[in-house]
């Protein structure tokens, strides 16, 4: 573990050295990330010009859930920047290099692609949660920050596990499957109150692709009015389960990996 942490420090230092040469790029990436979230927030704001509530959820509550999503997603994309895994590591054969080194292959790949600009979006999400917190006049308990950390870790593990499994598909088949953009679009469902969906989609978002645990369920822990203690407390549990599945698929995939053949 301390070995991994020391690697993390080295990689971050390296990242800063290379990226700060192109400072403008850093801010452009941050800006375009934020713009993406801004559009989603604009959608929420505009929608609430025309309605009082969304299946019983007020504007501030929906914004709070979105803030939580931004926070979890920011942390996730900082560490699991695996979007071009197949292209870079399998097709171009960089996986061979990774496998000759002592640290765990997934850790190395996560570190090589660590993406700190995404964290800015996470911090903005935290700020949005803070603002909605006071708008809603929610009580602040001593354990809330602690629970927030547990929830965010759980949510990040869910995303991490799911996208690790998807990246690991490249070990079995090198053809582009288009499944990642598919997931990316389904995950948007988790940002809205689960009550607006029909039974089938609710089941899907809770137990098959548990994206509701990266948004509405954990966030409802803090929204006393919508508290659903069982579901929100399941977040870290589901996180550990999904992450374990993801890691297992990854490790099995590694054993099947035969190199690009060049």
């Amino acid at each position, binding site marked *: 573990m301390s070995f991994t942490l020391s690697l993390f420090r080295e990689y971050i230092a390296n990242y800063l050295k290379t990226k700060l040469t192109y400072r403008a790029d850093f801010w452009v*990436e941050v800006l375009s990330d934020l*713009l993406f979230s801004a*559009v989603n927030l*604009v959608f929420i704001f505009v*929608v609430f010009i*025309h309605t009082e509530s969304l299946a019983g959820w007020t504007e501030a509550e929906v914004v709070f859930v979105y803030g939580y999503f931004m926070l979890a997603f920011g942390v996730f994309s900082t560490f699991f920047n695996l979007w071009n895994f197949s292209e870079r590591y399998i097709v171009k054969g960089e996986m061979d290099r990774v496998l000759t080194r002592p640290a765990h292959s997934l850790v190395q790949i996560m570190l090589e692609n660590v993406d700190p600009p995404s964290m800015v979006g996470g911090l903005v999400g935290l700020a949005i949660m803070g603002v909605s917190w006071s708008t809603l006049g929610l009580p602040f308990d001593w354990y809330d920050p602690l629970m927030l950390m547990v929830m965010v870790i759980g949510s990040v593990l869910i995303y991490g596990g799911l996208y690790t499994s998807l990246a690991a598909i490249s070990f079995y088949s090198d053809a582009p499957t288009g499944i990642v953009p*598919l997931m990316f679009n389904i995950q948007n469902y988790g940002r*809205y109150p689960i009550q*607006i969906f029909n039974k089938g*989609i609710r089941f899907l978002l809770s137990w098959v692709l548990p994206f509701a645990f990266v948004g509405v369920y954990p966030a409802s822990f803090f929204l006393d009015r919508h508290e659903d203690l069982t579901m929100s407390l399941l977040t870290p549990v589901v996180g550990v389960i999904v992450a374990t599945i993801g890691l297992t698929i990854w490790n099995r995939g590694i054993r099947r990996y035969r190199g690009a053949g060049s």
Partner: protein
Amino acid sequence: MMLAYRVNYYSGIIIYAINIGAYYFLWKAIYGDADTLQGFTVAQITTYVAVSWMGRAFYFNNLDREISNDVRDGSLAVQMTRPYNYLIVKMMQGFGEGIFRFGLFMIPGMLVVSLLFPITFPSDPVRYVVFVVMLWFSFLINSQLNILTGLFAFFVENNEGMMRMKRVLVDLLSGVVLPIAFFPSWAKPVLDWLPFPAITYLPSSVFTGRLNGPEVWQALLVQVIWVAVLILPIMAMWRSARRRLFVQGG
């Protein structure tokens, strides 16, 4: 080449159906007990969402990325020596791709989503013809904006962020995510002076029957005007870009 990637179309249809589904449920919740909002009935908004996304399937292209790649790797220089207009060739490539997307993505996609969600199709055949013509203008305007964004690669080191921002902005301001009628009242007059609503909002309004009689032709005229107006900045940029071009190691 296009047919080799048929899977892309299938997964594309599923992705668009997923997006349409998300907005369908959202809009249903937004309406709650209300019958109409901003003049849209629930049936109309569902149709609007579906046809807007499927229209996007047709007019969407990556010309911005292709052009900026050509600029950055220098292959543009080779293309410039050839006896054709580079931008028109790009546009036609995009159009060819668009026709494939129309036949393999938009039409089957529309059928799939009409099975899943309550969509009302217009009964007047003329409306379909006008809609297809308008969609073609949507393609032109969207491609023109893509060309403008792509050509920025001449002037800035990295236009990656700009391309991403453009994509998000076009989705919001063209009315794919949210019909312009729902925008706050201060924003509507501003949008009237921007080309974005001509990409999605106008054709989709025709398809859903929100625009009728002379309004239809007016909407088409607005699109024609935007196509004509957008030629100017493209020509200006293309000219100054050619003057700036020097190829490394060429």
